[in-house]
């Protein structure tokens, strides 16, 4: 869960980006997506676009639905767009369960819950022509939007949880997450960690590389033993962290204020420090990341408007506007070729660099069924992760 | 300022002597007390009398230590206490509104000073009982102050101060909040307690009758200074300034011009109304008498006395006061508008500067 807690006044600068995480998990894209069978309610898909309804109610991260592009949509379709900004994935799930909303910008740690709960309907991608070849490979067919061969989401954008460091203190570029995990780190006491149960996956990514004996194949598919190992690593890290961050503003001030010299970050946060001394790297172990997608409520009373919106926002220009506004890699690669500014944005956020995102494990709700394909054990679910996370800080 | 007592005490120093030398107190631009000298010998009951704002309470608070002096020194028993904080001075105070601690019982209030001195509960209980007994309030000792009447609280405040056996007891208008009858009872009680304990009492009041009744000496304050200090009789009968004459009861101030016409000496005199006789035609006057003629302007019956106000030809209004006798027939028999003569013996008047 990412908490996108808005700190009102304080954070004016950062407010725009306050929304953080998103979702989706993935694994090696080939292995997990299609192959895995998960029990989900069987819901009908929308057959064809009919007459537009009057209005469209969207639960969104702040910055995803803005008048800059929703006004034009209303002009084109006559669908009035009503936005409800949510602060966390949990809040989004709760809001979607009221049945009052048509669409949600679901993140990976919310999407599986929504799909499994029957809260969102499978999509007819034929009705979203902009969801085409230009959608980056890494965002197609991921577990967050494709279950049992059915698509549930239209991708919006993605980002990685990177290792940021203060190059005045950390003079040599770190190649491994070990500076953030090992007790003998030279930066002990100046390390920042992400403050959410999903951060357990970051420990699992590190263990995948350094403790192969544990047999972790997917950081979101941990059996009890593997979870315990991840928690042990987190407890070890707890002794050397300066603080945990959930609020982007807090993360930026922690680096800027000197409390922290190395730790988990996003590209957009580094950019917002506006200070060249802060650099970032995607370490050799790879990392976790997040990816957001539009999802359609199973109880939507404006499906035609909703499909139109998903298509509209998947167009390169609009998708790019959202991505630039929020600070993430856009889902539609066609945006990157629009102009120099778009190109620079895509480069900065590695939008089309699939090699880069191959190393990224997008956030996915952990469930009891092991999404790495194992059937001989039961994996730990998100509730267990949450309970375990609370023991890290004690 | 040459009272006989002060003169005798000046030479030797006793523990209860209070001596102020050149004391000045200013509050911002306002001077409350100006260059004041005052000597109070051990065992004296001194009243500081004056209108509000005359500086008397400020002097008391400086003796207690609640106010610093701006300049000058304060000695008690010869020891310079000018810079000693209040809790280390050998004086105790009875406050105008008693200042009993509302959360402590009467016995605890009275015991407070002993407790502060570190006396154990068992040691102090006898002293507390007898202090409360001295003011005859044994039956209220376990009550809280708000359950007591004003007079009872006043007596407890007295007991609380006296239990510490101070060398000097300061009383800041302690009877001011009591009704007249209770006040008179308390005056007698205060006087007898003072006689009993034999310590110096310095008593602030604006009630001239109270001051005259209680005190060995009265210091009359005006405008930050002592206008006159002396025994009750001295300040009453022989006021040295017009202020004192007017502040202490009623007074006839005869201007120099009039006195010169009558006696040949150009001086202002003050004469008390009860010293002025209302003459009938038959009444004789002696050579010492000063006689004036006038018209009865007003007749005021006060109970024990009758006052007759007489306007003289040169615009002076004189007050005469006569004791009423048992028989109305014997009382003053004049009417408004009657032509009368008034007279007083020159010895009974005081010459003012």
């Amino acid at each position, binding site marked *: *869960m990412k908490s996108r*807690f808005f*700190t*009102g*006044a*304080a*954070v004016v600068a950062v407010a725009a980006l306050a929304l953080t995480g998103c979702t989706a998990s993935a694994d090696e894209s080939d292995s997990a997506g299609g192959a895995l069978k998960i029990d989900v309610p069987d819901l009908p898909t929308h057959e064809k676009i009919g007459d537009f309804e009057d209005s469209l109610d969207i639960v969104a991260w702040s910055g995803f639905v803005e008048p800059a592009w929703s006004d034009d949509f209303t002009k084109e379709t006559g669908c009035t767009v009503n936005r409800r900004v949510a602060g966390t994935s949990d*809040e989004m*799930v709760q809001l979607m*369960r009221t049945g009052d909303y048509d669409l949600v910008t679901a993140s990976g740690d919310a999407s599986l*819950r929504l799909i*499994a*709960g029957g809260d969102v309907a499978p999509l007819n991608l034929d009705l979203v022509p902009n969801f085409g070849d230009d959608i980056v490979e890494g965002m197609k067919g991921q577990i967050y939007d494709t279950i049992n061969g059915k698509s549930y989401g239209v991708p919006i954008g993605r980002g990685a949880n990177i290792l940021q460091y203060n190059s005045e203190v950390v003079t040599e570029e770190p190649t491994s997450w070990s500076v953030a995990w090992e007790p003998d780190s030279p930066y002990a006491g100046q390390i920042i960690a992400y*403050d959410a*149960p999903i951060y357990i996956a970051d420990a699992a990514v590190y263990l995948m590389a350094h403790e192969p004996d544990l047999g972790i194949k997917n950081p979101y598919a941990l059996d009890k033993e593997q979870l315990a190992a991840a928690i042990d690593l987190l407890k070890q890290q707890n002794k050397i*962290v*300066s*603080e945990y961050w959930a*609020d982007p*503003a*807090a993360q930026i*001030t922690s680096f*800027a*204020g*000197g*409390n922290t010299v190395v730790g988990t970050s996003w590209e957009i946060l580094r950019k917002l420090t506006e200070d060249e001394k802060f650099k970032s790297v995607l370490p050799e172990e790879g990392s976790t990341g997040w990816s957001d997608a539009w999802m359609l409520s199973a109880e939507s009373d404006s499906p035609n408007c909703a499909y139109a919106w998903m298509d509209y926002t998947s167009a390169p220009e609009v998708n790019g506007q959202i991505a630039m506004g929020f600070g993430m890699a856009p889902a539609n690669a066609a945006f990157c070729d629009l102009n120099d500014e778009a190109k620079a944005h895509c480069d900065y956020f590695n939008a089309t660099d699939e090699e880069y995102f191959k190393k990224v494990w997008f956030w996915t709700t952990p*469930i*009891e069924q092991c999404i790495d394909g194992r059937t001989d054990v039961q994996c730990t*679910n*998100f*509730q*267990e992760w*949450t*309970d375990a996370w*609370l*023991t890290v*800080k*004690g | 300022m040459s009272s006989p007592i002060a003169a005798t005490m000046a030479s030797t120093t006793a523990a209860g002597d209070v001596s102020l030398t050149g004391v000045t107190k200013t509050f911002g631009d306002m001077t409350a007390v100006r260059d004041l000298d005052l000597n109070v010998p051990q065992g004296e009951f001194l009243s500081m009398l004056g209108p509000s704002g005359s500086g008397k309470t400020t002097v008391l608070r400086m003796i*207690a*230590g*609640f106010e610093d002096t701006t300049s000058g020194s304060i000695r008690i028993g010869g020891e310079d206490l000018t810079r000693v*904080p*209040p*809790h*280390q001075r050998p004086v*105790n*105070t009875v*406050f*105008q*509104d008693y*200042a*009993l*601690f*509302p*959360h402590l019982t009467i016995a605890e209030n009275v015991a407070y*000073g002993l407790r*502060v*001195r570190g006396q154990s509960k068992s040691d102090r209980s006898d002293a507390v009982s007898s202090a409360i007994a001295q003011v005859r309030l044994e039956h209220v000792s376990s009550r809280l102050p708000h359950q007591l009447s004003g007079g009872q609280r006043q007596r407890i405040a007295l007991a*609380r101060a006296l239990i*510490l056996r101070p060398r000097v007891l300061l009383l800041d208008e302690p009877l001011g909040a009591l009704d007249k009858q209770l006040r008179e009872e308390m005056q007698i009680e205060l006087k007898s307690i003072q006689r009993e304990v034999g310590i110096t009492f310095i008593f602030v009041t604006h009630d001239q009758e109270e001051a005259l009744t209680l005190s060995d000496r009265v210091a009359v304050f005006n405008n930050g200074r002592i206008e006159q200090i002396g025994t009750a009789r001295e300040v009453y009968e022989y006021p040295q300034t017009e202020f004192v004459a007017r502040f202490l009861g009623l007074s006839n101030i005869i201007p120099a011009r009039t006195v010169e016409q009558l006696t040949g000496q150009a001086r202002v005199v003050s004469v008390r109304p009860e010293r002025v006789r209302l003459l009938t035609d038959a009444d004789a006057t002696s050579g010492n008498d000063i006689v004036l003629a006038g018209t009865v302007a007003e007749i005021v019956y006060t109970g024990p006395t009758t006052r007759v106000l007489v306007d003289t030809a040169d615009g002076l209004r004189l007050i005469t006061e006569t004791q009423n006798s048992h028989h109305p027939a014997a009382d003053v028999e004049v009417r408004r508008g009657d032509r009368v003569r008034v007279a007083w013996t020159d010895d009974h008047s005081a010459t003012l500067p």
Partner: protein
Amino acid sequence: MKRRTQLAGLLALPMFWLVGIYIFSLIMLLATAFWTTDPFTSKVKPGFTLRNFEQLIVNPAYLSTAVRTLLIALAVTALCMLISVPLGIFMAKIAKPWLRGLLAVAITLPLWAGYLVKILAMRVTFTDEGFFNWALGPFGITGPSFSVTTVILTLTYLWLPYMAIPVYTAIRQLPANLFDASADLGAGAWRTIRTIVLPLIKPAIIAGSIFTFSLSLGDYIAAKFVGGSTQMIGSIIASNINLNPPVAAAFAVVPIAFVVVYLLSVQRTGALERM
């Protein structure tokens, strides 16, 4: 009859507020504490289980967090008292009127600003390159960085007005001559404070402490922003509120229990009647 109607009219809104909103939501919260959650969809299912409460005791992390939160709340309350009493005495009895006015504004100033603004201000103050280290660094003093200590200082800063204002008002209302009388009877300043001032302002201190104590118990934003790795009861409730409402509800009972115990213990002193 008419009087009754009037009375009903008078009480309608407060009763609706108290019973309808306040009590009802509290009861709903308590009821939820006995329900269960579907582990996958995190949908709440009515039922009856004591497991959520069992967790509070069995789970060492929950227990230590509860204890830590209690200690933080007590420390904040104690610190607020330690600051408020001397400050109140200074303002009420020593300070010149202009300084008194200035201090009154300074004390209430935090109430004018937004809660998050204040927390973030404290965050900025206590960063390694922040004001605290800048000001005290030259004297060899290093700040507590982000830690439990910083949480206590921040909460003290946040809640001080709730203690300082009633305490100052109470001291101001003490008759001046009680101070004189105590000094006159031989008591020094500390003795007067201990034996006269403190007993007389006890109701104000208790009133203030109810605020500082319960507000501190419920807070978690301070822990989040200036606590480094500090976790409080509120942090756990916030983590569970959407995902596992029953556990959050069960945990919400803990601060309520602390406050009830606290109220009962101050009530025994008789202080509440004088509030």
